[in-house]
């Protein structure tokens, strides 16, 4: 095993053990040794993140650990930002998901859990936050051209906004550019079909599978 391979293994382990200090140390060591930053992500840290994601899927890891792992990944990416920008290669992503809680709804936790799970599974996620006005979704779809738009609504009073967003996308002529997923406590499969969404899931884990199938 080469020194670089040993370094990659240590990176994976740093995430598995949720050791953020060690992770940053390893990033610095890799940069000093001139290791390709894309390899640092893909061959190193992503492997560890996947292990935590799989353990979560098997009911062995807890959500709090998953979030911690994702946070370390974010720190690592920030540390690598300069080197990545200078690199010829790009980190491979499964797709881009634009996500937000609809207008009138200020609930965020479900959306945030999904965001973490999508990132762990290799998606690039752009979070518009909560209480997002309908037109902002439309503008951002046009501007960022995501593969998937995820609309979260917790309350029975706000799920109607999901329909408004889909209508607004149609009126703006950009509905065909993006797959729309809807979710949230009050959302049902029937509702998602009624409003013409492309995907629906009852919980965050299922939503990742739906997202994978939509970009697959």
């Amino acid at each position, binding site marked *: 095993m080469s020194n670089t391979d040993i370094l990659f293994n240590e990176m994976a382990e740093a995430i598995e053990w949720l050791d953020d200090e060690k992770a940053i140390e390893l990033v610095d060591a890799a940069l000093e040794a001139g290791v390709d930053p894309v390899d640092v992500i893909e061959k190193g840290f992503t492997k560890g993140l996947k292990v935590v994601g799989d353990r*979560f899927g098997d*009911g062995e890891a*807890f959500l*709090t650990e998953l979030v911690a792992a994702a946070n370390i990944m974010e720190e690592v990416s920030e540390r690598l930002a300069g080197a990545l920008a200078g690199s010829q290669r790009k980190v491979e992503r499964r797709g881009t998901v634009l996500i937000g809680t609809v207008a*009138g709804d200020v609930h965020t*936790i479900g959306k945030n859990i999904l965001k973490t799970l999508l990132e762990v599974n290799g998606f690039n996620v752009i979070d518009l936050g909560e209480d997002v006005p309908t037109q902002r979704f439309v503008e951002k779809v046009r501007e960022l051209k995501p593969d998937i738009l995820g609309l979260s609504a917790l309350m*029975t009073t706000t799920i*109607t906004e999901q329909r408004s967003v889909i209508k607004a996308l149609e009126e703006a002529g950009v509905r065909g550019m993006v797959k729309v997923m809807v979710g949230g406590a009050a959302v049902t499969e029937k509702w998602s079909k009624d409003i013409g969404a492309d995907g629906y899931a009852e919980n965050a884990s299922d939503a990742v599978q739906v997202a994978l199938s939509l970009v697959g």
Partner: protein
Amino acid sequence: MSDLTEYRGGKFSVLSRDQIYDIHMATLEVLEKTGVLVKEENALKLLDDAGALVDYETQRVHIPQYLVDEAIRKTPRSVKLCGRDPKNNLRVEGNRSYFGLGGSGIYMLDPDTLKRRTATKQDLADSTRLADSLEHIDFLMGLIIPQDVDQNIWDRYSAEVKLKNTMKHCFTGALGEEGARDVLKMAALVAGGEHELEKNPLFSFILCTVSPLTHDARNTQTAMELARHKAPIIFACESICGGTAPISLAGTLVLQNAEVLSAALIAQLTNPGTPVIYGAVSSPMDMRNGSIVMGVPEVALMGVAVSQLAQYYGIPLYSMAGITDSKIPDAQAAYEKALQQVLVGLTGGNLIHNAAGMLDKMITGSLEQMVIDNEIIGMVKRIMRGIEINTDTLATDVIDKVGPGGHFLGEKHTRRLYKGEHDLSVLSDRMTREAWEKAGSKDTVQRANEIVKKKLETHQVEPLDRDIVEAFDRIILEAKRKTMG
């Protein structure tokens, strides 16, 4: 004023007096040091004028201790909540407990297939009338939010259905200032005027805080509008341990307390003496999958703890017991519900909501479950009554009369005290095996279903005057016109 038997707690606790004080002091620290987010300009102004440290740009408010004391002092220690029939009135204070429906689900369970379906306005009417008929259900909230009406004004439809279908007090929702005004107008028509309604509130309004530590614009506006009418407001914190609240139960109790007391402060600054009801009904998150869990012992523990906290403050409480993660009326539903109900009841949580009718993390309503819950509550109430000790019940006279070797069957004493001393079930099977088989070997859910059918066939609620019903129609039509804009 009320015919309801009094049921009092005060027989169980999980917190010592010192621990309650610790929670109180931690809450004061959070409110002063961390502060809360108030996303409503007029509320910020009120808090600023009263002496809170307000940053208008970030909308962050730091609340000094003396303002928290003011909020507690100005909140009435007792609230009278009324039904259309005064015999159903509730006196909410101290350690008096009442049990009520759970609610705001979006599905109903089909008792035959055990599948769920989307809830309708008819379901709300049926469930409300059934709850009206059940002896141990003291107050209602909408079992479900009807999904077949315009979702922008479901609050008006719910108010209409409730006023038509029960003589008991109801919790209800209001969507914004206009919703609050419409719903109050509807209730005032039934109460006989606005002034009458203020004296005899037929509705209390549930408003949720947004955890952690946020009061959003619409709910704050609604609260201020309700306060101007002195309508009873329940500020409910529904945080999630480990998600929107600390993972520790103590930390969750502190966070809830900070949210509810700061909401109460805004109401009291708007209109001193507004009947505010303390609501703290958080539940944990299952860290294995991120879902909320409800039928867990921690919910019972927190239910007891908030009952003690509210009693310490002397603020009427909206508590919770009887929630379950089970999808169908089964053994899990029964044990999860019973455990919470008996503990919160023995503590004396005031308005124990969600005590009846709900399954599946409060998403699905079930009429059969409501009948089963009515049975559990009846047993809990019997336990709460305890054992009466007096000359009559000590029964030395009748023991002497019967003497050694006789029996008590024919005694007047037996006939006179039997009903009061012993729980007479309507649902539970307490027959011999042979008798149970002869009656069709029915399980609990089947027997509950028979009771549901019979009650819905026979139970009538006194109809409202025609002009009131027509006025409801006009209010709803007008609200509809406005939303169509």
